[in-house]
């Protein structure tokens, strides 16, 4: 298997394409239930590169969702277990090359033991024992920074440091929501019903971008201190009121007429949108201080002490920024009530950024939405909110598990369009899991077709749709009832179905798992598992009897 994989990935043309954000090798996930062991994912390989959208298609039970969950180690572990495999996230190309070199060495040793492929990175690490020791010494004894960096790269390669399955729980948590994000199928249930949308998005930021938030908090404090110098309070006006006041020459709160930009923005706002009377920027009821100019908008019980309090807060946050493990901060953190107070500014800042993220996903009135609960939103908006939440930290890879299956078709189109736009903007990779071939055709650059826990075909969208190799893929294509085009002709044709049913993964068929239903099955198909091999350039298929070019299938 290892050799097949290496050739797979080599032939995918590493050097010329963008770096691989995700590499999955030999992933095997089983579920140990009381009825037996369900072999949900049986050794699959995947590569997803930056900026590309890879689709993972398959019917229910094909193992695509389990694959996605396995990547982030979210498989419920009492019944489930990742038995084997390696999942590399954000492995730099140089490290990848080096790893290949080391794995060649390790492979030789493996063969001597009588095995054919690597089960896990732990195994590789164990086989490369002496080299790793050596490299560690090199790091310690490095004479220059460059030499040290070099040695570290080699060490990372040899120890498979970028393999998610090898990482500690804490390290994995750092990746989740940060480098790799995942959105789920049911936006109705995937968002926590007792927290506002803004809070849930802010949480992602607090978890992973705390330093940025602290810097933002410091800026906010400065802004507010400055605003306090000018005036203690400002009011909230409706945009309509503000427009009237400005147009009558009576600038609210003596705002100089020269600040026309604010006025222009006012014109395009909804009449009931609330704005700050000091600076005319939008300032909904979720803000106690104006998010733009920092003037206090609500009654402040602690008003006389506020400046002093703010300066104290400033000192506290500076400490937090300087030293994440500060004892004072830890102590304050440990008392629950105090913790909420201490962190309230972090949450405010998080919510402020959350509003920005919400507008990134084209939600109108993001301020209002941020203060609402998930049940107050429609399905499409909830999905957008979830996207905003998971994209808050600009992940390198977005795993989308049937993101549009629960949505109306029109909404589905919007969401897909949104995802593509976000992708163009941030060059992120998308692993799109779906059973809808139409979506795949629209959106995906490359596609993997899964059946009963295996990837049976992999290639570009064009290759999969027009030069189908695997009989299952072919069956899928033909099963789609077609409306347009050949309507008259189709009326005469019967609906095509792949005969048989999806196999029971407790006792999967021997050899190729599709063989009982395959119109092109040969004798060998029942005994030998076909490996996923390149058939035409980058187009791979796992089949002993693939559909010939231009020919009609069996």
């Amino acid at each position, binding site marked *: 298997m290892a050799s097949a994989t290496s050739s797979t990935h080599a032939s995918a043309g590493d050097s010329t394409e963008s770096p691989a954000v995700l590499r999955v090798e030999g992933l095997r996930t089983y579920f140990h239930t009381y009825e037996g062991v369900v072999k949900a994912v049986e050794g699959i390989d995947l590569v997803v590169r930056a900026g590309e959208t890879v689709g993972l298609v398959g019917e229910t039970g094909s193992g695509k969702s389990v694959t996605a969950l396995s990547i*982030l180690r*979210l498989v419920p572990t*009492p019944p489930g277990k990742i038995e084997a495999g390696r999942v590399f996230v954000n492995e730099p190309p140089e490290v990848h090359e080096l790893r290949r070199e080391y794995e060649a060495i390790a492979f030789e040793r493996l063969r001597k033991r009588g095995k054919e492929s690597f089960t896990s990175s732990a195994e590789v690490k164990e086989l490369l024992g002496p080299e790793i020791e050596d490299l560690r010494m090199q790091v310690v004894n490095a004479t220059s920074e460059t030499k040290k960096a070099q040695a570290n790269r080699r060490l990372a390669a040899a120890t498979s440091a970028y393999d998610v399955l090898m990482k500690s*729980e804490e390290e994995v*948590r*750092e*990746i*989740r*929501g*940060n480098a790799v*994000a*995942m959105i*789920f199928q*049911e936006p109705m*249930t*995937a*968002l*926590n*019903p*007792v*927290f506002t949308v803004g809070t849930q998005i802010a*949480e*992602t930021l607090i*978890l*992973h971008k705390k330093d940025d938030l602290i810097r933002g908090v410091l800026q906010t404090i400065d802004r507010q201190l400055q605003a306090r110098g000018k005036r203690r309070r400002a009011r909230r006006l409706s945009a309509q009121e503000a427009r009237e006041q400005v147009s009558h020459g009576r600038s609210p709160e003596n705002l100089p007429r020269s600040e026309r930009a604010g006025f222009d923005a006012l014109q395009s706002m909804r009449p009931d949108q609330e704005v700050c009377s000091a600076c005319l920027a939008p300032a909904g009821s979720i803000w106690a201080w104006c998010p733009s100019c920092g003037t206090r908008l609500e009654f402040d019980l602690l008003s006389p002490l506020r400046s002093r309090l703010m300066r104290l807060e400033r000192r506290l946050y500076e400490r937090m920024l300087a030293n994440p493990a500060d004892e004072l901060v830890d102590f304050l953190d440990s008392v629950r009530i105090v913790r909420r107070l201490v962190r309230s500014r972090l949450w405010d800042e998080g919510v402020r950024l959350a509003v920005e993220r919400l507008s990134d996903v084209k939600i109108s009135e993001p301020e209002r939405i941020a203060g609402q*609960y998930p*049940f*107050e939103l429609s399905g499409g908006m909830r999905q957008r909110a*979830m996207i905003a*939440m*998971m994209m808050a930290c600009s992940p390198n890879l977005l795993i989308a598990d049937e993101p549009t299956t629960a949505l109306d078709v029109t909404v589905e189109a919007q969401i897909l369009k949104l995802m593509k736009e976000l992708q163009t903007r941030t060059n992120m990779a998308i692993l799109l899991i779906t059973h809808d071939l139409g979506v795949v055709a629209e959106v995906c650059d490359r596609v993997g077709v899964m059946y009963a826990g295996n990837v049976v075909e992999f290639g570009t969208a064009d290759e999969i749709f027009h030069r189908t190799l695997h009989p299952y893929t072919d069956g899928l294509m033909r099963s789609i009832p077609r409306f347009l085009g050949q309507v008259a002709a189709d009326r005469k044709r019967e609906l095509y179905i792949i005969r048989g049913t999806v196999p029971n993964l407790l006792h999967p068929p021997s050899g190729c798992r599709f063989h009982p239903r395959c119109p092109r099955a040969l004798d060998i198909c029942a005994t030998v598992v076909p490996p996923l091999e390149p058939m035409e350039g980058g187009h791979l298929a796992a089949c002993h009897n693939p559909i010939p070019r231009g020919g009609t299938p069996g």
Partner: protein
Amino acid sequence: MKLWEYVVRRLLALIPVLVGVTLITFILWKAIPVDPARAFLGPKAPQSLVDQYHRLWHLDDPLPNQYLYYMGNLLRGDLGVSFVYKIPVTDVLFARIPATLELTLYAMAFAIPVGIYLGIRSATSRNRWTDHAARFVAILGVAIPVYWLGIMLKIFFHEGLATIHLDVLPLDGRLDSAPTSTITGFYTLDAILHLDPGTFVAALAHLILPAFALGFAQLAIILRITRSGMLEVLGQDYVRTARAKGVPEKDVVFTHAFRNATSATLTVSGLTVGSALAGDVYVETIFRWNGIGQYFFQAASTGGFTDLLGYVLLITVFYVAANLIVDVLYATLDPQVRLGGS
């Protein structure tokens, strides 16, 4: 809608219920198989006196009129005269309420937090033994009768511990000798207010056994319901989402999951207050605690009808109030209830 609107609505909904309860107590009053006036005055009282009381208490008026007089009295806070003590029932109740409240509060302060914590731990522990042990304790807790537990505790803490000379805890009453002056009637609180650590410790010591006996059953119930609520929530999608965001497991459990599991726990907490108020009767009898529970027992065994019914009304008010608080807390915690979502 705003929170206070919700509260007002709930309060208004309570009125018919409370009226209904007065109907029940009234029916019970009329269902007494003997002549209440005769029962009150005793067999030796002259018939003329009994007749006088009949007129005084409107015992022979048409039923609807009797009910109206009854309601009138209730609204004026008059629960009648105690058959047991021959003074107004309300006086007796007021004198004895602090004792019961103190006991019940301590019992619940023990039962609720411990029950919740153990329930959560039990639901999240991978160790099947912890879970089984917790479940067994929970089931045992509701199978053990309060009255029996109290007695067993007394036996154990006297006889059992006497053998190793550890029979430290006092067994009866609230204090060994009556306190000199009381402000609130809550002996522990009064001791604090009087800055009297000795009395405080003594009062606390007297509270330990009865509060435990009373609270144990409630703890079991709360543990169970918290555990099952948590198990259900932990299987929800948003818990998976939280993990997918990288939230540390402790926060996943206590923040994301528990906030959603509180509804069942909260409802049950309200019910356990009722259960505790009922259990008070037993505990106070066994531990000679001068609260309204003991009073109820006296009334029940000596045929103190007004006392009985007065107690029923008062306890109902408490119970209903506790459930109202639960409802309000519900609304505070669950935005859907408040905002009227789907």
